């Protein structure tokens, strides 16, 4: 973008990376914070006018024109034609242009009040996305900027793209900031600060000293990223309050004179589940990322967050905190803006009429089979790579494109959705291929893994988003076409597998578990993979070959297999576990650890034939954990269960443990919202205690029997495929019986005798008063 030269000013060129971008509150336009190649942090300014459009009956548009001409701050007006994806013909538009983003927001709201029946386009697009559409920018893009000494940008050129596999990344300066304990659970006494290899501990008392020290640290290190824990929910609001009270300015923002952006907490519905998003605290000229509040911190850390920001063109602080659905939405809006497709304010279109018969035939999801329950050996797991997005790209499925035949390609030019997804999908496949070839020591492995994980989340989400009611470019028919393609692909894969002599043990939406005697090397599956790719036109890969894998039945009803509850060991010895306690976020860490110990021990068996040898060891591991529990050696933190609240505590008709814990917190003024998790301990007498209540409960009040129950349940899932039922496990643990496993395995018959457990008598005391029936240990 070029502006008239000022003769008196000298121009300079800056090469660097774009760190942050937001509205300039001093003069109309944007502020760009750039990290230069020399390591300097430079603040630049650029005028950036904003446009949006209206369409509707000519008569009304004329009225709007008159109204805007006589407006206190009259905008620039013009008449144009534009393309609405959902209309076959171009639409007539009144285009409104104003000097600043905030002015545009105000004008849009004002017009909406007066003329609610008009269609509004490009009216609620964020500033960073608008800038990205115009310049090709994205967070941490390489850029070359010519500007005047005053910092006024003359030209902003982007030198790379988010789709490059290896981009040159800048050296960001980090500062870690966190309280010395969880502020929801106890009162912190100090702040722990670390930057550039130095660690500091700042006492919260006296506040004046704290503020002065922190001020000095922020000035000295001038971090690009402030990495906190509980920064959104407690730390930064607390520091700001303190700094106002003592009138000591804290340079949390890099941008001078700018306020903070605080977003309140909220609960919302997403994919049929109630979700909770915590309060947010955004900085300017510097990123604030709260590890406790970042969506996928545990999945992919800062590298993944940066990648999420880069590919979606959302600011890093936003990308860290929003759902992948918002990321996908941003990508679609950006594609639309770059291809001159109008972005409607909200979606109007309902479903194209279909007959009730067509409804039955189209309103269904992916195919979920019932696995053959039990233990299987030499099983190949094969998965379509990002199946739904791949179908959208291959079959050009988009709200505006015509319906293609199942899994067929058409000759129509690519629609908005395929245009958006294709580069992302290509990058994911390229990283996947590279992962197979990179040696273990290569530093890129970790980075690639984080990035790949971010891509996966986006790609998984993009399908659901197509059917989301408020998605601007969603369409239910497109959503249905994708699932129809998915079912077809899975069935073609099944047919190909069977044609080539494999037995199909299980199928799940986009994956198959197959077995054929003596086929247990990766190369044994290559001809099949090629054949499936040929029949479907979709890429499919071998997830791995299991030495053995066990499909489990439902916990509630043992005669019902459940599709996604299994564990197995790949040939390289790595474990894969789905649907067990160890994977569940509500499990007590001690229970999860115990289950993982059992699984890891079993995973050492080189072959299913050797599993019997490992049974005495697993039993010993289980007993050791139970002995720890009984002897009080398990820290209370490891017994915490984290239950998700699905509604307000008082709305529960049956007061669940989670509801009771939430009500305890409510009484002392700590409110939890639906979608949040409440951490609690089970106490004797069927009581619970919320972990965030002041004071630790007496360890003697812990309901050991309840935890014993949870542990046995978790352990029995592991023992089930070995042929030991939950009842038998309990009976053995209680003592008095001796188990004898007699395995008829290929290696020949083996007998393993486990002595009756003697330790268990100590448990009896805990269960006194409890009716000893078949399930005598069921407590509360």
């Amino acid at each position: 973008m070029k502006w008239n030269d000022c003769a008196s000013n000298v121009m300079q060129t800056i090469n660097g990376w774009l760190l942050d971008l937001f509205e300039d509150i001093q003069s109309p336009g944007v502020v760009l914070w750039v990290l230069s190649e020399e390591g300097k942090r430079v603040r630049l300014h650029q005028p950036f006018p904003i446009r949006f459009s209206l369409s509707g009956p000519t008569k009304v548009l004329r009225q709007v024109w008159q109204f805007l001409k006589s407006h206190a701050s009259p905008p620039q007006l013009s008449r144009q034609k534009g393309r609405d994806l959902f209309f076959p013909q171009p639409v007539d538009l009144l285009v409104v242009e104003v000097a600043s983003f905030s002015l545009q927001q105000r004008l849009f709201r004002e017009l909406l009040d007066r003329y609610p029946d008009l269609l509004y386009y490009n009216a609620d697009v964020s500033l960073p996305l608008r800038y990205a559409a115009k310049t090709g920018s994205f967070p941490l893009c390489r850029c070359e900027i010519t500007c005047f000494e005053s910092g006024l940008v003359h030209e902003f050129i982007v030198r790379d793209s988010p789709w490059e596999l290896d981009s040159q990344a800048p050296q960001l300066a980090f500062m870690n900031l966190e309280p010395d304990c969880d502020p929801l659970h106890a009162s912190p006494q100090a702040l722990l600060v670390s930057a550039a290899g130095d660690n500091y501990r700042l006492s919260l008392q006296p506040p004046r000293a704290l503020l002065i020290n922190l001020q000095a640290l922020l000035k000295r290190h001038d971090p690009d990223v402030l990495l906190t824990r509980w920064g959104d929910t407690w730390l930064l609001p607390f520091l700001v309050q303190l700094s106002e009270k003592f009138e000591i300015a804290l340079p949390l923002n890099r941008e001078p004179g700018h306020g903070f952006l605080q977003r309140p907490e909220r609960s919302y519905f997403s994919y049929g589940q109630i979700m909770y998003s915590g309060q947010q605290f955004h900085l300017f000229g510097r990123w604030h990322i709260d590890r406790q509040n970042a969506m996928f911190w545990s999945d992919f850390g800062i590298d993944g967050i940066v990648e999420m920001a880069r590919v979606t063109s959302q600011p890093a602080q936003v990308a860290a905190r929003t759902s992948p659905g918002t990321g996908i939405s941003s990508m679609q809006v950006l594609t639309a803006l770059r291809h001159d497709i109008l972005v409607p304010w909200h979606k109007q279109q309902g479903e194209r009429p279909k007959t009730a018969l067509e409804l039955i035939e189209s309103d269904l999801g992916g195919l979920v089979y019932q696995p053959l329950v039990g233990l299987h050996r030499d099983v190949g797991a094969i998965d379509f790579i990002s199946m739904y997005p791949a179908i959208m790209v291959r079959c050009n499925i988009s709200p505006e494109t015509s319906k293609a035949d199942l899994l067929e390609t058409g000759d129509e030019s690519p629609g908005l959705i395929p245009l958006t997804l294709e580069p992302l999908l290509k990058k994911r496949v390229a990283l996947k291929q590279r992962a197979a070839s990179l040696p273990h020591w290569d530093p890129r492995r970790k980075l690639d893994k984080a990035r790949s994980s971010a891509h996966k989340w986006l790609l998984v989400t993009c399908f659901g988003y197509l059917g989301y009611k408020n998605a601007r470019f969603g369409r239910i028919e497109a959503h249905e076409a994708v699932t129809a393609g998915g079912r077809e692909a899975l069935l073609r894969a099944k047919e190909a597998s069977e044609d080539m002599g494999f037995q199909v043990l299980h199928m799940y939406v986009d994956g198959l578990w197959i077995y054929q005697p003596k086929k247990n090397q990766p190369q044994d599956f290559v001809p099949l993979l090629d054949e499936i790719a040929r029949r479907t036109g979709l890429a499919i890969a071998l997830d791995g070959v299991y030495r053995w894998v066990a499909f489990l039945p439902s916990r509630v009803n043992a005669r019902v297999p459940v599709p996604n509850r299994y564990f197995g060991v790949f040939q390289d010895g790595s474990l894969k576990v789905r649907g067990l306690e160890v994977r569940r976020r509500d499990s007590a860490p001690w229970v999860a650890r115990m289950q993982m110990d059992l699984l890891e021990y079993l995973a050492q068996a080189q072959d299913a034939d050797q599993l019997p040898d490992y049974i005495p060891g697993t039993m010993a591991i289980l007993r050791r954990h139970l002995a720890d529990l009984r002897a009080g050696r398990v820290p209370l933190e490891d017994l915490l269960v984290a239950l998700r609240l699905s509604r307000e505590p008082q709305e529960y008709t049956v007061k669940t443990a989670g509801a009771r814990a939430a009500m305890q917190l409510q009484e002392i003024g700590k409110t939890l919202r639906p979608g949040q998790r409440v951490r609690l301990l089970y106490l004797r007498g069927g009581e619970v205690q919320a972990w965030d209540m002041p004071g630790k409960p007496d360890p003697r009040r812990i309901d050991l029997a309840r935890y014993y129950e949870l542990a046995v349940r978790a352990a029995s899932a592991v023992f089930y495929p070995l042929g030991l039922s939950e009842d038998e496990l309990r009976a053995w643990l209680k003592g008095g019986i001796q188990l004898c496993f007699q395995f008829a395995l290929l290696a020949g018959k083996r007998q393993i005798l486990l002595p009756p457990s003697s330790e268990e008598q100590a448990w009896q005391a805990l269960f006194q008063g409890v009716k000893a029936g078949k399930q005598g240990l069921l407590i509360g």
Partner: protein
Amino acid sequence: MNTLLPAQLPNQLLLVMGEHAASHWMLELAAWLSMQGPARVLDGGNRFNAYPVAQSIRRQHFDPRVALGRIRLSRAFTCYQVHALLTEWPAVQHPTLIFDLLATFYDESVNLPESQRLLRKVLWQLQQLSKLAPVVVSTRMPATICAERMVLFEMLKAQAGSFRLELEVQPQDVEAIAPSQPTLLPFLEGGAATKSIVRRKYG
């Protein structure tokens, strides 16, 4: 079954109300109409479960595939979509059924004045349609947490030519009362590739 339904639907706006938006009755009505000729459905609350319709048609010894093929439906998931669909729809001579009309208007993601504005337009559209052919609208009350949306129901009621109340007992309510014995099946034994395991207990 047809004692349940009016012998002949008049060209007017009939409002049916029930706790579950009278869905059961509406589905029976859809089945009955589809055996006589084409019908049009707008589903505003994910209510059009086509299976009971098929069963009802079959009970009348009629081919469900033929009859289901005569029902043309569109689903709306926001009140904007309800309005847009009614705007696009051509005027027809055959009956129109609207399931759970107010569901999307009760949705609090759209503010109440905006919902009212859109509902006013929708009601006008329904009046126009009902001059040519019967229009049957089903609805329910707003949930207690958004009681202020009751005004939307009053707006709809004021426009109705006739009104019918369905006392709905859902199938699951009946099941909850029905006594049952637990399943008698034992644990499933492992799948084909499972190795046989014999256990013995001592002591």
